């Protein structure tokens, strides 16, 4: 398996991987210098295949695109994580309050999240990877639990996150959409945070295609007051070393 994943540089460069494989390979890439280097050359090669297909675009396309850029907000640069040994985990009270005026947009996000989770689950169910299927199953159990409680927020660098907690399942799930890949050599790490701001590592992840991810947090939400996500060196840390890019209050 480990040997064959290196062979996927070619398939990845021509977008021949399906969603799950793409996500898995991107996870592998963060820790494999050889694959990253090889992929760089193969991506340039694939771009030549595209470039050879260049056509003369109709004039209308330019007018249309240029007239629209004014209404498209640009993404901020991904800031490298600060060396934040001194930065304690962001206090939960800093969370943007989501009041009734936000209810509609929250509902929309929850719906979108549900749709994304379903499609991710379907994709995962189709996969023969048993590990993924088990994961998809536990995600489904939490999302469909009678006492499931979902809190949504935005990632600091773009993308939306929804954390669903079920006390009866003793489990929590993070669903992310439109989340950019972490800087190379780094990963996202999830944390259960208690009322005193102490963090407990809850697993690492790298978003898949279109920045989507749906996965259970490692460990039980019991005793925690919030869930956070930070950027950490590949492999994860035992304590957060950067400021959270997402923090949502999930408990009292």
């Amino acid at each position, binding site marked *: 398996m480990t040997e064959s994943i290196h062979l996927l540089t070619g398939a990845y460069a*021509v977008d021949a991987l399906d969603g799950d494989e793409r996500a898995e390979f991107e996870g592998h890439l963060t820790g494999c210098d050889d694959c990253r280097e090889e992929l760089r050359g*193969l991506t340039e090669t*694939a771009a030549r295949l595209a470039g050879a*297909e260049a*056509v003369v675009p109709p004039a209308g396309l330019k007018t249309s695109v240029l007239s629209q850029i004014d209404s*498209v907000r640009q993404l901020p640069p991904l800031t490298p994580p600060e060396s934040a040994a001194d930065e304690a985990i962001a206090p939960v009270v800093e969370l943007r309050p989501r009041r009734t005026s936000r209810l509609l947009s929250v509902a929309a996000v929850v719906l979108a999240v549900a749709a994304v989770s379903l499609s991710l689950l379907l994709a995962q169910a189709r996969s023969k990877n048993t590990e993924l299927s088990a994961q998809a199953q536990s995600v489904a159990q939490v999302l469909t639990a009678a006492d499931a409680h979902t809190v949504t927020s935005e990632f600091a660098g773009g993308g939306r996150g929804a954390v669903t907690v079920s006390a009866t399942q003793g489990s929590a799930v993070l669903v992310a959409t439109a989340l950019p890949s972490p800087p190379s050599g780094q990963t996202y790490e999830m944390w259960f945070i208690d009322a005193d701001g102490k963090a407990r590592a809850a697993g690492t992840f790298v978003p898949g295609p279109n920045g989507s991810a749906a996965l259970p947090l490692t460990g039980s939400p019991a005793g925690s007051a919030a869930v956070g996500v930070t950027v950490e060196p590949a492999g994860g840390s035992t304590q957060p070393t950067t400021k959270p890019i997402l923090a949502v209050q999930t408990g009292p």
Partner: protein
Amino acid sequence: MTSTVRRGTVRLVIVPTSPEQLLAEVAKGDGDAFERLYDQIAGPVLGVARRVLRDPAQSEEVAQEVLLEVWRSASRFDESKGSALAWVLTIAHRRAVDRVRSAQASTDRELRDASRSHVVPYDDVADEVENRLERERVQQALGALTDLQREAIRLAYYGGYTQREVSDLLDVPLGTIKTRLRDGLIRLRDALGVT
């Protein structure tokens, strides 16, 4: 770079021209730089969308999405990972492929079964070609691959098929397809002098 001479003083005006330089300006919200970048990338972006999607209206839609995405996420371009053009065309190809896969999910199977008997229909490009020389070079490099390497790459890249589908279409084990996609691309890379 252009220089302007004015009343005895020489003023050197640096005009960013490479896609990389232009992207850096675009990231700061420079609309003029975006227009210059547009002139360099719109042809290939539309071309690859056209090749994968076939349908002219859909291709233009996808090209437009991709070009706006370039404007939106210019700040995320990372030169250490490759050239600006490769970054743009990776976005374009992936967007086109994702569109094909979602749109075709339902009707796909029948079409695929129907096309099983004639696998190589990729020659019906009616658009005005932008860069004939480059196309010829790439065609020549593709021609130097083994049949399996070439068909696997064409089905995956121009057809938008997954490696699993390519394996089905060519009736070759998946492991072989993975290997051929990789060694085929490596051979292309060397033939095209990609560094």
